[in-house]
């Protein structure tokens, strides 16, 4: 089953991190990703640019309205994410707790779900095995 792991970090603290420490953190993540790939847990991962680089899109009455910045101004922002494959929540939690960024912030672990159309279940991801939806 798939789980989304959202990594929340305090951007101010991150910004204050010396370059060398940041390099080490990044290297740990990249090494970790290779491990996850080998163990079969890795589906996808990305590091995100800071929240200021975000744009929010709302479409109402056919018109797209944009606002700059992230959805929520909170102390900790989404800094990156993983989609992992895990047998159950315990395994997902174990993977999440080993993420190199985990000691620095909060990781939200949320199960992914199928999309139902007329009683049939489909995977949203095009990268997973399973029934694909043909319109």
């Amino acid at each position, binding site marked *: 089953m798939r789980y989304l792991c959202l990594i929340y970090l305090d951007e101010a603290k991150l910004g204050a991190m010396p370059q060398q420490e940041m390099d080490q953190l990044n290297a740990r993540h990249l090494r970790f990703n290779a491990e996850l790939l080998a163990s079969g847990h890795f589906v996808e991962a990305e590091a995100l640019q800071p929240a200021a680089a975000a744009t929010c899109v709302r479409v109402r009455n056919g018109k797209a309205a944009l606002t700059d910045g992230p959805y929520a101004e909170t102390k900790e922002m989404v800094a990156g994410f993983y989609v992992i494959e895990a*047998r*159950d*929540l*315990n395994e997902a939690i174990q993977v999440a707790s080993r993420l190199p960024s985990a000691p620095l912030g909060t990781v939200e672990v949320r*199960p992914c*779900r199928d999309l139902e159309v007329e009683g049939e279940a489909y995977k949203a991801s095009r990268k997973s095995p399973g029934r694909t939806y043909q319109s």
Partner: protein
Amino acid sequence: MGSAAEAADIAAIVDSVYRAESRRVLATLIRQLGDFDVAEEALHEAFVAAVEQWPVDGVPDHPRAWLITTGRFKAIDRLRRRSKHEVALDEEGLERIEAIADPATPGEDEGVEDDRLRLIFTCCHPALAPEAQVALTLREVCGLATEEIARAHLVPAPTVAQRIVRAKAKIRDARIPYEVPGRGELEERLESVLRVIYLVFNEGYLASSGEALTRHDLSTEAIRLAKLLVELLPEPEAVGLLALMMLHEARRATRVSPEGDLVLLEDQDRSKWDRAQIADAVKLVEAALASRRFGPYTIQAAIAAVHAEAPEAGATDWAQIVGLYDVLVDLQPSPVVELNRAVAVAMRDGPKAGLTLVDAILARGELADYALAHAARADLCRRLGRAGEARAAYAKALGLTAQAAQRRFLERRLSELSLSPARGAG
């Protein structure tokens, strides 16, 4: 076949089997069927079948095994008959259940681990909301009805029902596995279980005399649960918690006066303490301490044991208690533990020594809003003859607690001080 009297006998047998075995049957059905609700339906149907068939076929040699098998078959029937939109499991899931074979020797328990242990750990999973852990445990492991749980917590029944529904949904949707944690996670997960059990106990223990009837059952339930846990998983901290609760329970009769007022430990009528329960608890404490793998609950139990073994308050071995608090402060550093240690130091070394410690804790600001800290300060000042400071501290404590019995106690102390001859600041 079967007269009315025989039918009544069978009904009584089914009833006693229900009381003795229904939780174990449920725990196994949850594992086999992979879903709490499906398993509960199956359990119900199995007992209905027992009431119908045992008068005809006789009571089986192994009722638990019969109920598990019957429940499972009933569930398979039900799942197959459901329409596509309702089906809880896909074909693969159904086939897996159908393939389950019962143990060759009926009555021989399948698997090394008791399914009740799986059930306890699942109900107390940290991914579930804390109130949900308590409600789910009381319902699934202890077999309490939703209404009983609601009454005991002074919370509306629909609220409890909703907590349980959400918890089961989370178990299903997030796929919380039905398993006993491995060695690596066991200590942490056990902490969660023990926390739930102690929460249940304390909710029973803190009842005022008005609600005594329902709340007392909660304490009994918690002790029963802890005994089961210790039987299935004799970890030292589980043993320690059981001992701690038994020691509290042994003194229950003397804790509150007939008027509902708090009676201090030093004033309790020790002849009314349950000496047998104390003796049993002390043995448990000693076993837990001997393991050398003990934790905070065990030390708290050891402290309670020292109190409980003293024939009268004056004979209390305060030096030993302080020594135990030294260990506890190490294991579970917290200002509240330090405060309790300070009170013990005051008993060993005199109020001045205790006051120095209490003031140091208060100076750090951590217990500024904790009524008991100010009550402790007040008591120590009172013993030192510093009436003015005592009055101020009692007043502060009163401002911080809404608990009726505690307020009456503090008010009484305050009024006792007002009767003392010295006027103004003491």
